[in-house]
């Protein structure tokens, strides 16, 4: 009643309050101009992002490829026997050369690792390159200089490192991926770090996906949202998603490495190497990262479940389905693409995490492949971090190559997850 009364008291608008004619036209033009200005601002924001990404990629690629100046301790041509160059010699000659140039102790060690009679010719050849020729990197140049300032690169190499061999080197090679760590930059590889990352991520997914999705289902479908306890839990999960990752590292150190050492070191199964692993294992790392991404998976899962239209639930209930049947047959399949998207993002974050693993105790030098959840480990980000903190230039090149490996690993894991999700989508919406 009150409302109607008010309307009656409002007088008719006076003439000329709304712009008309040219005034209206100009006003529209002004409004459109304002809109275009904002569009330009947003485009600039996107452009800035793309530029930043390009700069990053340029930096990485620049470091990953380029000229290197190398000085050999012994020139391979000096090792030629009877006019035959090193790489054409038969195996027995190569063994002789090796024996003549390295200490007897080292020779015995190689013999113990694998008798020379069983070693292949290539293997012995590699040993000679490694121990006798002993190439040393003197300087490296970036990809940009190598392409556009080739002359000055060679001139500089000639001047500063006379007698050095200058050649174009890709730091990202198949041997970089397949070789394990080494303190010699030319022989170092990321094989152990790749295996470490894969192991840790596998444990992270196995731990956090079922628990995260389960918690999301409980919170969305079963928990009474008005209850104080549930509101408290919900708020805390949201806050946990923003806790700095190093805090999770401390948590992992306290709980998985120290308190649960018996389990995480594998001692309860009688396996695992006490002297080296002592709880600083792949299992601890995987569980720590699992805790780290658990809130993300729960929140994303909840959002995906909430987005399932209520009409779908009602249709299920209306046919006499139980709550669980509705969840299992309708809610979860509809929510799964969203749940998987959230999981992909969370796992991507886990792959790139460094800080918590430093605290949990990733090793920086691992020459042996991890053999299971109870091995000590290193992961790609740790490896990159360790290489970038070395004083020598060439380790920076290794780090750049390792970053490329990490990016490729990340992209391929994401791509496979996206493919999986799309398959899920397609199989549901049969056309």
């Amino acid at each position, binding site marked *: 009643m009150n409302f109607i009364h008010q309307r009656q008291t409002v007088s008719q608008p006076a003439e000329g309050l709304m712009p008309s004619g040219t005034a209206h036209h100009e006003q529209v033009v002004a409004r459109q101009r304002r809109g275009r200005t904002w569009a330009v601002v947003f485009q600039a924001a996107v452009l800035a992002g793309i530029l930043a990404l390009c700069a990053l990629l340029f930096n990485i690629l620049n470091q990953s490829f380029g000229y290197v100046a190398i000085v050999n301790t012994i020139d391979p041509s000096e090792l030629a026997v009877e006019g035959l160059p090193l790489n054409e010699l038969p195996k027995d000659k190569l063994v002789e050369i090796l024996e003549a140039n390295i200490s007897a102790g080292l020779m015995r060690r190689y013999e113990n690792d694998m008798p020379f009679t069983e070693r292949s010719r290539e293997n012995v050849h590699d040993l000679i390159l490694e121990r006798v020729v002993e190439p040393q990197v003197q300087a490296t140049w970036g990809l940009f200089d190598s392409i556009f300032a080739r002359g000055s690169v060679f001139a500089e190499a000639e001047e500063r490192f006379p007698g050095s061999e200058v050649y174009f080197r890709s730091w990202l090679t198949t041997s970089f991926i397949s070789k394990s760590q080494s303190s010699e930059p030319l022989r170092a590889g990321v094989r152990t770090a790749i295996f470490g990352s894969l192991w840790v991520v596998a444990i992270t997914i196995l731990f956090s996906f079922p628990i995260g999705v389960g918690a999301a289902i409980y919170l969305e479908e079963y928990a*009474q*949202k*008005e209850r104080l306890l549930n509101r408290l839990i919900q708020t805390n999960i949201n806050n946990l998603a923003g806790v700095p990752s190093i805090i999770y590292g401390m948590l992992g150190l306290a709980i998985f490495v120290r308190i649960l050492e018996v389990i995480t070191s594998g001692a309860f199964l009688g396996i695992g190497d006490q002297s080296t692993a002592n709880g600083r294992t792949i299992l601890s790392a995987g569980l720590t990262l699992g805790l780290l991404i658990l809130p993300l998976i729960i929140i994303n899962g909840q959002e995906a479940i909430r987005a399932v*239209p209520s*009409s*779908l*639930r*009602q*249709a*299920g*209930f*209306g*046919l*006499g*389905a*139980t709550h669980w*049947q509705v969840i299992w*047959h*309708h809610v979860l*399949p*509809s929510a799964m693409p969203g749940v998987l998207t959230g999981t992909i993002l969370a796992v991507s974050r886990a792959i790139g995490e460094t800080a918590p693993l430093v605290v949990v105790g990733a090793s920086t030098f691992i020459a042996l492949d991890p053999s299971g959840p109870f091995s000590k480990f290193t992961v790609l980000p740790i490896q990159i971090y360790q290489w970038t903190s070395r004083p020598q230039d060439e380790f920076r090149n290794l780090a750049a190559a390792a970053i490329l490996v990490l990016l490729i690993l990340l992209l391929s894991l994401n791509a496979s997850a996206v493919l999986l999700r799309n398959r899920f989508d397609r199989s*549901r*919406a*049969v*056309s």
Partner: protein
Amino acid sequence: MTVAIKHPAQAQTETVSLSPNGTGGNAIEAEKMSVFYGDFCAVRDVYMKVPSNKITAIIGPSGCGKSTVLRCFNRMNDLIAGARIEGEVFFQGQNIYDSDVDPVEVRRRIGMVFQKPNPFPKTIYENVAWGTRINGFRGDMDEMVERALRSAALWEEVKDKLQQSALGLSGGQQQRLCIARAIAVEPEIILMDEPASALDPIATLRIEDLMKELSEKYTIIVVTHNMQQAARISDYTAFFSVDDKRTGNLIEFDDTEKIFTIPSQKSTEDYITGRFG
């Protein structure tokens, strides 16, 4: 422990309930049923005896609690947080709000078709088959699906694309699929909440024809805000109105013919003739 809903035996004592002069038993009887959402009383003190194997229409202005009442008949309101029902709703002599009655059991025997067609994002076949499968159907599934689709007058249109997504059907076809899906679990009552309001006139007519056919086997209760539709298809009509506290009340429940020609209540007449609502 849940108790199976008994078959009609206990006759309910005569109350002040509004009831049309139907013969041949009642499918569902509401006794002093009130619905609350939190503190708000949405519908108050409904007495209603819905006759079997007839079409009963529920009409009334927006917000008068038509849909709320309908959803009480198969306990769909249980799904709404904060909803509370007082009074009793008898289905075959059993109060479906007794603590030992499982709403899951009620909902198979009192099916529902919703306002907006809501097929599952699965194949047409699976849409029909799913409800029966979860309810333990153990016969020939192909035959059952065909029978349900034929009953819903949809078989001829979809028989060649049973394995295609139900979402590819037109709105009217989707709604008939939802009816087929509801029929498939062999309910005794079908509740329809404005089943044709999202459809064009031709699809609406097909649904109405279908409801006529189905009323031979099933009791149908349909909420509609289309009075012509109520007049065309229903045997009985219940008129709900809303008071100044926005609480819905059942005003009149009688033969459709009577409601639309000589209603006993002034407010019914006002509504029917378009002077209100």
